[in-house]
């Protein structure tokens, strides 16, 4: 490609025009985030109350081009440039940024989750003695990384997007400056995250070395021969380990429970849903686009990861007494279910991708909802201990019902959302009657039963047991939190009763590779 570079310099560069519509979501988020920062810097205390509202508006405005691109539909997949047949396109970064149905669904998911996270954070941040506005600016930066991630089809942009997602999250995990637990949460997350990126980069450097290009489709072409060379295997294993940290797959999950417990709870929801989804998106992009011919290396590795992730996550979750930690381990186990379709992606990569994305969408709704209830309950009980949820039915029946819906959904009980997500995973696993797929399906089924035990235990606590201190005064639920619970309940129920709504969106042709 250095030859291309020389000709670029020598000849007159004819730059193709930029497809502004395709990158509008990212640009709006970038501009909006910067605007919020500047407004905060100029008017300081006078506008502090408005910053959350402004940030959530930015997310909703950025959603508009996502919807118009989806509705337009024509010309997808689109790249960063408008390719004209008459002008030879010779950009070095051509194909690194791709907008297709897959990335649009994910962008919608990230923006809506971010909107709910802001709703969850508003009261939490303004009532604690924290730095308000910077928190929202960092969330906007992190979400920008997620949007870029869903369109990245190049090692460099995947790496930069991943870091843009993670670095603000390290800061936010340590947000409660004087709380030792929060410090510890930030330290553990930062050290493990940075270490994981370093391992990931080493894997990427090997893949780059084999292919001579950072573009995922070029890597796929370069290792198309189907041979397995040790250096390719090493590159793939290191890369998957790096993503394994981000999605908290066992044995790379050790940071997750401590970080989730110590970090501010709205940020925990952000990490458990949006940040984890971003890790999965990166994993899908690399596995599906760059490694379609390396199934003999990728599949067994992900199979083992998925099996131990769901089993270990569920078994440790069983003996947790703190609800946030329990949700952390349940999130680890859920990551195992989400990894499962990637353990049998050979030949059915489109189906495997839509199963994972379906799971991500439904998981986002139900998990954000569960965290919303935890945040509301903590306003009264000041605790996330399981016993403190006793008697909730007496003083907050609506909230108890909402939490029960989320728990049933997490356990995969019809008719609420989670069952459809699991059903899709099982359908992909059993497709083609492969022994490995069916074995993994059996492990996942056993795990769903184990998981139902501790999810329903929480419900039992809320419905039937008396409150520990006999305090049955009602909880005042602020409107923002009420809206968050309402949105997530609606999404959880709709995705379960009318699964077609989700599956119509996640039924992709395939992940577009870029040219």
């Amino acid at each position: 490609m250095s030859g291309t570079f020389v000709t670029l310099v020598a000849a007159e560069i004819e730059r193709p025009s930029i497809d502004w519509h395709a990158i509008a979501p990212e640009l709006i988020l970038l501009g909006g985030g910067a605007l919020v920062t500047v407004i905060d810097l100029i008017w300081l205390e006078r506008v502090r109350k408005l910053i959350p509202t402004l940030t959530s508006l930015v997310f909703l405005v950025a959603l508009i081009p996502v919807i118009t691109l989806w509705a337009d539909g024509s010309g997808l997949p689109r790249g960063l440039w408008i390719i004209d047949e008459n002008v030879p396109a010779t950009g070095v970064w051509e194909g690194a940024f791709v907008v297709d149905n897959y990335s649009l669904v994910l962008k919608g998911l990230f923006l809506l989750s971010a909107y709910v996270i802001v709703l969850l954070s508003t009261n939490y941040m303004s009532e604690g003695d924290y730095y308000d506005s910077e928190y929202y600016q960092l969330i906007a930066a992190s979400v920008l990384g997620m949007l870029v991630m869903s369109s990245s089809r190049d090692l460099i942009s995947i790496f930069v997007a991943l870091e843009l997602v993670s670095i603000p999250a390290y800061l936010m995990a340590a947000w409660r400056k004087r709380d030792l637990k929060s410090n510890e949460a930030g330290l553990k997350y930062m050290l493990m995250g940075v270490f994981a990126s370093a391992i990931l980069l080493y894997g990427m450097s090997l893949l780059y070395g084999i292919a001579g290009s950072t573009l995922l489709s070029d890597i796929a072409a370069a290792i198309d021969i189907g041979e397995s060379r040790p250096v390719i295997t090493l590159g793939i294993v290191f890369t998957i380990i790096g993503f394994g940290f981000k999605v908290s797959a066992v044995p790379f999950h050790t940071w997750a429970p401590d970080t989730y417990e110590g970090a501010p709870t709205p940020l925990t929801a952000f990490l458990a849903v949006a940040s984890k989804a971003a890790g999965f998106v990166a994993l899908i992009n690399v596995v599906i686009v760059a490694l379609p011919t390396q199934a003999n290396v990728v599949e067994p590795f992900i199979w083992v990861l998925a099996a131990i992730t769901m089993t270990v996550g569920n078994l440790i979750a069983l003996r947790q007494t703190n609800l946030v930690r329990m949700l952390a381990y349940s999130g680890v186990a859920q990551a195992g279910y989400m990894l499962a379709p990637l353990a049998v992606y050979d030949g059915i990569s489109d189906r495997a991708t839509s199963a994972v994305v379906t799971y991500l969408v439904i998981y986002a709704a139900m998990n954000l909802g569960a965290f919303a209830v935890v945040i509301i309950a903590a306003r009264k009980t000041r605790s996330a201990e399981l016993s403190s949820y006793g008697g909730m039915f007496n003083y907050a029946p609506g909230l108890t019902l909402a939490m029960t819906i989320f728990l049933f959904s997490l356990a995969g009980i019809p008719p609420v959302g989670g069952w459809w997500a699991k059903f899709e995973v099982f359908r992909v696993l059993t497709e083609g009657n492969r022994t490995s797929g069916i074995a993994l399906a059996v492990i996942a089924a056993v795990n769903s039963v184990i998981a139902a035990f501790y999810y329903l235990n929480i419900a039992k606590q809320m419905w039937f047991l008396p409150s520990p201190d006999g305090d049955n005064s009602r909880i005042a639920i602020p409107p923002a939190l009420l809206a968050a619970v309402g949105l997530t309940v609606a999404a959880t129920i709709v995705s379960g009763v009318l699964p077609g709504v989700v599956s119509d969106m996640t039924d992709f042709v395939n992940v577009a590779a870029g040219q």
Partner: protein
Amino acid sequence: MFLNQFLFLSAVLFCIGVYGVLTRKNGVLVLMSIELILNAVNINMVAFGAFNADLGGQVFALFIIAVAAAEVGVGLAIVLLIYRNRRSIDITEADLMKG
């Protein structure tokens, strides 16, 4: 062009870095060990780039240097925060949460 020598150097640096991350108790030294791994990656990138006559590797290395600076900036801020509250940067002492 002796590609294998560069790769060998980078592999050695990588191993030293991983060893350091796993054994060091001092937060700052862990960050330095991570820097060693990142430099191993940079050597790989530049060597492969020169070997394949492709500029992408050097560009990637530049990106890694820039992002690593941001990572270490945030990392040192968090280590400093721990130091202020605990008067120690021994990461094995950060064990309030377990299980």
